[in-house]
């Protein structure tokens, strides 16, 4: 009887981790800042999720780790810059509708550009290195360098500002806490994307095929599905998501530099490891955890922010060596 109970506890423990962290932080930080930080953490987490989710699906489905993922983040950010410059008329108006319209255009442009580049990338680079982890790592790192340099060639070496639109600057006040307006926007977009992803994976046939393929690639092929073609689509979706994440990250920081993706890379890897390679749900929880940890620790001990995430990863690995929600290992 108690065995059963223990098993149930083990099953639900990973889900409880995030709420526990949130609740534990409250007394340490104090209600006022806690609200701000929690929203900030959730927002950062959602943006990281957008970037990381593509990568974990790509890995889960085809065993490909794309070290060049950061390049797509950067491409998305830069394309957004170029698209928003002529739309300055819309973004500077004090009209929420126009602002959002401009942002929507930029988001779509970033997604399309990164997705298209992803298509080319899969054909030219990834296709050669299926099943060869060593060459994958090497070639994608090389490609990352090349793409980042090409970005500098096209847009120049200087960092470029990416201002927020007029209505999304500043903060709203809830009680004694201030929450940046842009964060709320990012949170909404991120949640919408996450919801769309969830619906796609659980309600559509293609999503079903993807989920099955992540578990057992050979079997899904034995059932007649051409997983290679599916993979191209997943790869493009992953890079498109990275592009959108890049745009929002860049706009949130108000400036875009060629290394914008690199700063996220280590956090994204930590999220993948914590969540379990291949698990979108794990990625979501991992991303939120990392976002929250960064903000809570960033408030309490600013220098320790990134270090604390690495420690978090180490602790979780000690508990669950394959991540919180591991998917079945491939052959």
């Amino acid at each position, binding site marked *: 009887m108690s065995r059963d109970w223990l098993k149930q506890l083990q099953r639900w423990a990973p889900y409880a981790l995030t709420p526990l962290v949130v609740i534990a932080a409250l007394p340490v930080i104090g209600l006022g800042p806690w609200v701000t930080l929690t929203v900030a953490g959730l927002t950062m987490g959602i943006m990281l999720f957008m970037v990381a989710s593509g990568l974990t699906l790509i890995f889960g489905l085809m065993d490909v780790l794309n070290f060049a993922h950061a390049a797509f983040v950067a491409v998305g950010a830069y394309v957004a810059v170029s698209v928003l410059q002529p739309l300055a008329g819309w973004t500077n108006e004090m009209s929420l509708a126009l602002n959002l319209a401009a942002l929507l255009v930029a988001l779509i442009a970033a997604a399309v550009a990164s997705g298209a580049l992803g298509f080319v990338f899969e054909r030219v680079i990834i296709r050669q290195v299926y099943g060869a982890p060593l060459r994958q790592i090497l070639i994608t790192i090389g490609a990352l360098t090349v793409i980042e340099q090409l970005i500098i060639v096209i847009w120049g070496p200087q960092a470029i500002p990416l201002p927020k639109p007029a209505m999304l600057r500043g903060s709203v006040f809830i009680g004694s806490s201030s929450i940046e307006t842009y964060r709320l926007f990012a949170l909404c977009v991120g949640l919408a994307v996450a919801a769309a992803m969830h619906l796609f994976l659980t309600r559509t*046939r293609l999503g*079903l*095929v993807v*989920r*099955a393929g992540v*578990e*057992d690639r*050979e*079997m*899904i*092929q*034995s*059932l*007649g*599905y*051409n*997983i290679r073609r599916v993979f191209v689509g997943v790869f493009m979706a992953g890079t498109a998501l990275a592009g959108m994440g890049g745009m929002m990250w860049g706009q949130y920081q108000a400036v875009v530099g060629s290394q914008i993706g690199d700063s996220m890379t280590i956090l994204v890897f930590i999220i993948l490891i914590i969540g379990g390679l291949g698990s979108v749900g794990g990625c979501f929880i991992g991303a939120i955890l990392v976002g929250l940890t960064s903000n809570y620790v960033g408030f309490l001990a600013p220098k320790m922010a990134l270090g604390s995430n690495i420690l978090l990863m180490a602790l979780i690995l000690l508990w669950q060596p394959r991540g919180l929600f591991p*998917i*079945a290992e491939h052959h």
Partner: protein
Amino acid sequence: MTDAGDALLRLEGVYTNIGRYRILHGVDFVARRGRVTMLLGRNGAGKTTTLRTIMGLWKARLGKIIFDGQSIAAKETPHIARLGIAYVPENMGIFGKLTVRENMLLATERRGFAQQHLDRVLESFPALKVKWESPAGSLSGGQKQMLAIGRAIIEQRRLLLIDEPTKGLSPAMVDQLVAALLRLKREHTTILLVEQNFRVAEAVGDDVAVMDEGRIIHTGDMAALSTNHALQHRLLGLSMADSL
């Protein structure tokens, strides 16, 4: 050899390597249409490799694999599956994180299930109805095997490749499985069945091919083999008494 049914599947001189190791050394045999062909042999004889090669999961280095007149040796696995070949691997290939329903759904062409086919499957494997919305990973070993086979037969297939379905199952489960296989046999489904359990082989098989060290060492009638204990012992190192 009784001459009922032409060859639906023919292997000629098939050599397969895994990495640097040669596993199949020129496999020749035939699976006749509408009959159950048993593929027997000791562990490591190459039976699973043969099935995987037919399915395209491993590529044959040399040799021909002809399915209903069409050469499939160089084709990709999804293509081969779409030609009407269903594969039930040794590890069953169940998607544990998906529900039983979702597992079955993946095996159908249409958006949903044809009620007739579904009823047929659930009749043979009633446990699946109970666990319909549960994650497939929560099923017992025997139930997973039922799901794997159910998935293979939910739509009409021209050839079933089944790898050691009774492995690790309780006697009751084995009986249920044999009943399902016999039902398929009555419907003239062509099956290529790998089995270690000689009793099951006897009950279900029409033709037999015995493998050893990557080669076929005997082909013939199941009935003939079943009555020839000396031959059984020579080929499989066991007799009727041992397999109980």
